[in-house]
């Protein structure tokens, strides 16, 4: 990393010195305490106004989750991994739970699968809205930020009603979920989806179709299909480049095999397409929510934990579930004390789901103890980081936020 101006000048000339004409670059640090970044640092070398080298320097939020997981009980790792991206909590923890379920050999019951799907989609919307909001603020459009965060509250409220926490739900546990939906939830969810559909049009009007924003995004940061594949990009960014890959499509998990929805694939691969891809995905998620809610309404409230756990439950547990105990919340599934000292049979499992930002991958290895032997987490943002290095050079400095924001980054997720 050559420092630009400080490192001396060209050989002494008679008369006047021209400082380093041969290396006309300028090193700018974007981050960590910079409005155009959070939790990370991008070292940008600009030549005039054009970026020539972009070096994402991450790890400012590296909280050593993989190591900590090796020392903690299986169930304790669910909240631990959730902290990777608390705004996408269910999607982030789900593959871990799935992987452990594979090792345990349990299959969650249907209702649990639908409940997980429901929360996953709510989280996906919330996470997309978060990303759009941040994107808006990067382009100087504070209204989009506020709108997105305001509408995100709708879905956070839904999630809160469902799980009892705004962001950190820790919702799926091995073999099931921790709560059932409250009685008025389906109605609320339908209202919320209707509201959101209308709002998306207004978003398009004030942001995506706004000529100002369009000109910032169109033909900026074009990632071709091959480049996206080569770099291993994931999620809506991948689909905005025209690759038809979505875990929900290629390897349906939970209830995604039973609900109907579309996977929007865009062809342009520029920042605008990435933004549109998110909007379209929100539309599809709304569809899924409605279907899941319909299904949940039709089916009785049972089987939200694996039978193995739930069959032997004492009466108190069922009382709590049906709301008989006044100080405790209703529809709360109590955990077995067994969870505190769960031992998982040895084996290796790999699980992937489509989280809000893309494919989330866990590799879990157990050696039969009450702690995992190794948990490898690869989060979608981490796989997207590489795009900054290869996509940004050649663009103008002002395109940095337009590209960076369009990838919907979330540094705690990639740093783990």
């Amino acid at each position: 990393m050559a420092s630009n101006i400080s490192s001396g000048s060209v050989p002494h000339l008679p008369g006047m010195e021209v400082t380093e004409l041969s290396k006309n670059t300028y090193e700018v640090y974007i981050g960590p305490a910079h409005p155009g970044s959070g939790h990370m640092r991008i070292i940008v070398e600009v030549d005039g106004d054009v970026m020539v080298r972009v070096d994402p320097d991450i790890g400012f939020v590296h909280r050593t989750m993989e190591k900590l997981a090796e020392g903690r009980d299986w169930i304790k790792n669910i909240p631990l991994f959730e902290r990777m991206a608390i705004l996408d909590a269910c999607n982030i923890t789900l593959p871990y739970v799935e992987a452990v379920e594979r090792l345990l050999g349990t299959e969650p019951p249907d209702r649990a699968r639908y409940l997980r799907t429901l929360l996953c989609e709510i989280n996906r919307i919330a996470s997309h809205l978060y990303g759009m909001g941040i994107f808006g603020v990067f382009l100087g459009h504070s209204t989009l930020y506020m709108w997105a965060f305001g509408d995100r509250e709708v879905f956070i409220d839904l999630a809160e009603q469902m799980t009892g926490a705004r962001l950190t739900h820790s919702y799926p546990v091995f073999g099931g979920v921790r709560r059932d939906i409250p009685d008025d939830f389906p109605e609320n969810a339908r209202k919320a989806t209707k509201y959101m559909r209308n709002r998306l049009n207004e978003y398009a009007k004030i942001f995506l179709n706004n000529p100002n924003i369009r000109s910032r995004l169109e033909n900026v940061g074009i990632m071709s299909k091959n480049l996206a594949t080569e770099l291993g990009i994931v999620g809506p960014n991948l689909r905005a480049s025209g690759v038809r890959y979505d875990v929900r499509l290629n390897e349906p998990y939970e209830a995604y095999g039973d609900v109907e929805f579309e996977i929007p694939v865009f062809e342009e691969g520029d920042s605008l397409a990435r933004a549109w891809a998110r909007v379209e995905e929100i539309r599809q998620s709304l569809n899924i929510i409605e279907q899941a809610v319909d299904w949940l309404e039709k089916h009785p409230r049972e089987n939200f934990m694996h039978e193995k756990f739930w069959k032997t439950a004492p009466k108190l547990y069922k009382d709590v579930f049906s709301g008989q105990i006044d100080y405790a919340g209703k529809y709360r599934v109590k955990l077995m004390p067994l969870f505190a000292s769960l031992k998982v049979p040895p084996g290796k499992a790999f699980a992937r789901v489509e989280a809000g930002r893309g494919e989330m991958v866990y590799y879990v290895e157990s050696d039969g103890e009450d702690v995992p032997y190794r948990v490898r987490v690869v989060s979608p943002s981490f796989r997207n980081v590489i795009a900054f290095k290869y996509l940004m050079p050649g663009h103008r400095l002002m395109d940095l936020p337009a590209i960076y924001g369009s990838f919907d980054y979330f540094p705690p997720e990639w740093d783990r």
Partner: protein
Amino acid sequence: MVGGEKKLISIQDSLKNVLKDNIISIEQAKGYIDVLVPTDKLVDSAKKLKEFGFDHVKSVTAVDYIAKKQFKITYHISSYLNEELSKYIIGLSTIINRDDPHLPSLSKIWVSAEFQEREVYEFFGIIFDDHPDLRLLLLTPVVAALKPLRKDFVVKEESDNIEVDYAAYNATKWW
């Protein structure tokens, strides 16, 4: 699921066809197919797999088997462009010695492995030969010197009893 099992078997066969005698063992793990190759044939196998259609790396995992004095490196690879292959995940793994961990880098073949190899390098101290840019990624040099994900680096767990003194909240304790 029965059909799925069959397909898995067929992909195992085709993998065997592709990699031929590079394979030490091939095993159906939970959720992926573990293919073990010798270290010196890693690059070759990777090239063959890439030609076969596996176009990106999902994860580069290293596991420290301290009892056996080994590292096992697994490249979980899959495909985007080939819809048939995208249903499978192949774990291309190799086992290296723990004392002097060296490994050819695959980031020339799959660019998507570049950052992940950097990460493995800093957490395990495993050196990837001919990696284009092998620098620290997440950690500071001080922390990276500990090689934190190796099993001989142990983080302290607290007990669930309160004999741990809560009064010790002074600045000196943690610093």
